[in-house]
């Protein structure tokens, strides 16, 4: 079974169906350390070889690397219509759904200028254009990370709001509404 496995020996979250894997049978026998231990998106279907030939996002959408936003969008639309699970032929549903998800991810990354810049940088750094598990993890992780970042940000903002609110209506130079609130509180 092919595994895009870069695992640390002893880590529980192996890539192939959850069984621990002792690293790829490479010549050097060295297990490359990776920056992240767990791969949340480790869902390779058993026996499927559709991940073997991995394409860059640009190849996936069929556009050149210098593609403009309009080109990206029209390519995405075309492919999304083709591979959408609701309109795919029933016998190739799995494959089409996978493709759809990939196309979706490609579009989300390439249509956002900052993410696209990051992707291009990574692509330049990496030797191959392989759509490796690590890279996929990066981009999906990026979305998840962005959401977590947003969440922690607004949580802090809410605490700050509470703090400000407690100090707001006191002191001189009160706003109109502060005076009204004070009147209301005094009357009841």
């Amino acid at each position, binding site marked *: 079974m092919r595994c895009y496995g870069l695992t640390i020996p002893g880590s529980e979250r192996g890539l192939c169906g959850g069984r621990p894997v002792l690293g790829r049978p490479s010549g050097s026998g060295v297990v490359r350390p990776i920056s992240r231990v767990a791969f949340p998106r480790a869902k390779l279907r058993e026996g499927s070889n559709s991940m073997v030939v991995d394409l860059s996002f640009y190849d996936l959408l069929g556009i050149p690397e210098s593609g403009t936003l309009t080109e990206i969008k029209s390519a995405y639309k075309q492919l999304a219509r083709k591979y959408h699970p609701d309109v795919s032929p029933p016998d190739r549903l799995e494959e089409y759904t996978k493709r759809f998800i990939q196309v979706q991810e490609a579009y989300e990354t390439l249509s956002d200028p*900052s993410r696209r810049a990051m992707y291009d940088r990574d692509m330049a750094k990496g030797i191959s254009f392989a759509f490796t598990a690590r890279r996929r993890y990066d981009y999906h992780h990026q979305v998840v990370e962005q959401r977590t970042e947003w969440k922690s940000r*607004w949580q*802090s*903002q809410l605490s*700050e709001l509470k703090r400000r609110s407690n100090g707001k209506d006191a002191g001189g130079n009160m706003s109109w*509404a502060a005076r*009204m*609130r004070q009147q209301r509180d005094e009357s009841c």
Partner: protein
Amino acid sequence: MAFCGTFVQPSVSPCIKYIVPRPNHGCRNKFSVRASASGSGDGERTIIWKEKGKWKIKYSAEKPETPLLDTINHPIHMKNLTAQDLEQLAAELRADIVHSVSNTGGHLSSSLGVVELTVALHHVFDTPEDKIIWDVGHQAYPHKILTGRRPRMHTIRKASGLAGFPKRDESVHDAFGAGHSSTSISAGLGMAVARDLLGKNNNIISVIGDGALTAGQAYEAMNNAGFLDSNMIVILNDNKQVSLPTATLDGPATPVGALSSALSKIQASTQLRKLREAAKSITKQLGDQTHQVAAKVDEYARGLISASGSTFFEELGLYYIGPVDGHSIEDLVAIFERVKATPAPGPVLIHIVTEKGKGYPPAELADDKMHGVVKFDPKTGHQFKTKSPTLSYTQYFAESLIKEAELDKKIVGIHAAMGGGTGLNYFQKRFPERCFDVGIAEQHAVTFAAGLAAEGLKPFCAIYSSFLQRGYDQVVHDVDLQNLPVRFAMDRAGLVGADGPTHCGAFDITYMACLPNMVVMAPSDEAELMHMVATAAAIDDRPSCFRFPRGNGIGATLPLNNKGTPLEIGKGRILTEGSRVALLGYGSIVQQCRQASEMLKEHDIYVTVADARFCKPLDTDLIRLLAKEHEMLITVEEGSIGGFGSHVAHFLSLSGILDGPLKWRAMMLPDRYIEHGSPEIQIEESGLSSKNIAATVLSLLERPKEALLFK
């Protein structure tokens, strides 16, 4: 689950009477095994199921089964729902909206984008005491469903049915009527100040979109809100659709203006994260002894929390929270609860990020996101557009403007975020450098056009008749007073059908024709429209305007190559000759006059039908001729009082004709707002249909019994 304050165990839910088990299919069983269901057909139903923690919907033409939504008739029924229930409710609400709009037509994707927001708002707040004000209002379909109007959703936008926008007369839950954009913060501030003066204690929530934020009124309101510091919540619904409709002919519109890039910068800020990481690591290294330093670092970081663009709102005086994932009910409820619990927050702006059309793949993929749709098939999203032998007036206008612009390099087009609605999308495609979309900013569009005209260009301002009301002072002061040759193409003049009185173009004849320098004209069919575009292009020494209605042409013979010829200014034309009675129509209502004359022929009455073409300058010779050769003159227009009929009356009195034997009557829109409905019903109700005209003629001729045949 603590955040929603529920003490009810999930098993003892309000929907005990529904025995349908919670859909819990692990497998992709698309064909429903519910033999007991009453659906017809062989099982292709809209199915809502939960897969891996996310709700999925498979759409079909059948009515969806919505066990939880069926129990909600009032926001109070939502108070005890758990987080899981709320998510299920959102999924069911989505399915219901798609089903409902597929049968009636209306606005689809904006409603889909705010499903989670609406659910969260009604769960946390208590309308009608709390006020939720929806800007523009076309996204209020989920709000209407959740506030007890679900049984009537099949009547939406139909005569005597629900309005397509919030309406105070319709329900107490609709706090403020909307239809034009960018008014929600102003209205909300007014309600907040009233609450403060009356000593009450409810919440005010204004929901505004990023597109509506391009209008100046939103800033006027935010500025004032910041100054007054009254408690209110402004929810900025950011779906990156800063132009409307959201597509050019080639694809989605790129956002208009600097505002959208500012908003996206706020969303994408990574520097902040890096800074906080750095701050955290410094604090860790410094250890326990350095409390003060740590506190300072924290405060510094906290001060930066609202950095990178949100100072935009902070400067105006609103406390900024966000960005927030607008499709996460959990997040939204948490934030609303916290803000509600704060005693004196002042004005708070919560920036949520949503996707227009979310949850319905055909809408997500469409160029215009299926913003406004007619009846469609829920499975595929394919709309059932009726084929018409003629194009719409908008398209004829766009064609003829393009032809004019090909010959004259100075012609430019301006619109206010309505590229599709005004037809200037076609112009944009042909002349991308000569078409200007200014966002929802009619006032700016008019003065911008005035500036262009002052330097010798020929600007065509294509703004809907009712939206031009917003820029009226600019029309008077910047264009007409200075006599600058700006051309106004007022689409959607007269009654507009399902959109109702908020979009009705009833007043443009009145407000344009009273201006001293303005040339005011109206075509009676699409060929005339093309000629008037050419006429307007030729008028270079004063401002001019022309109005045309919503709808399709009548099939008139178009001029060669769609290129119109300029008309003689101030000259109308006679269409049919008759005797005793003359019908003088202005604009597309001339077609109704013609039909009336056909009907009257059967009663052996032959009336003259004339097309005035110009309201200013009036064709005085034509009026004198008609007055001399007929006993009765009826002027007909699809506008309010003070328009064409009024100008004719003024002329008749000044010239002394009114002292003579002539009987003069004016037919116009009645002195009330005509409710939404189909165009046929509206015109009947306003008394301007061909039947009404014929009946008026007959009563004037003192044959009232026959007039009754036409009523």
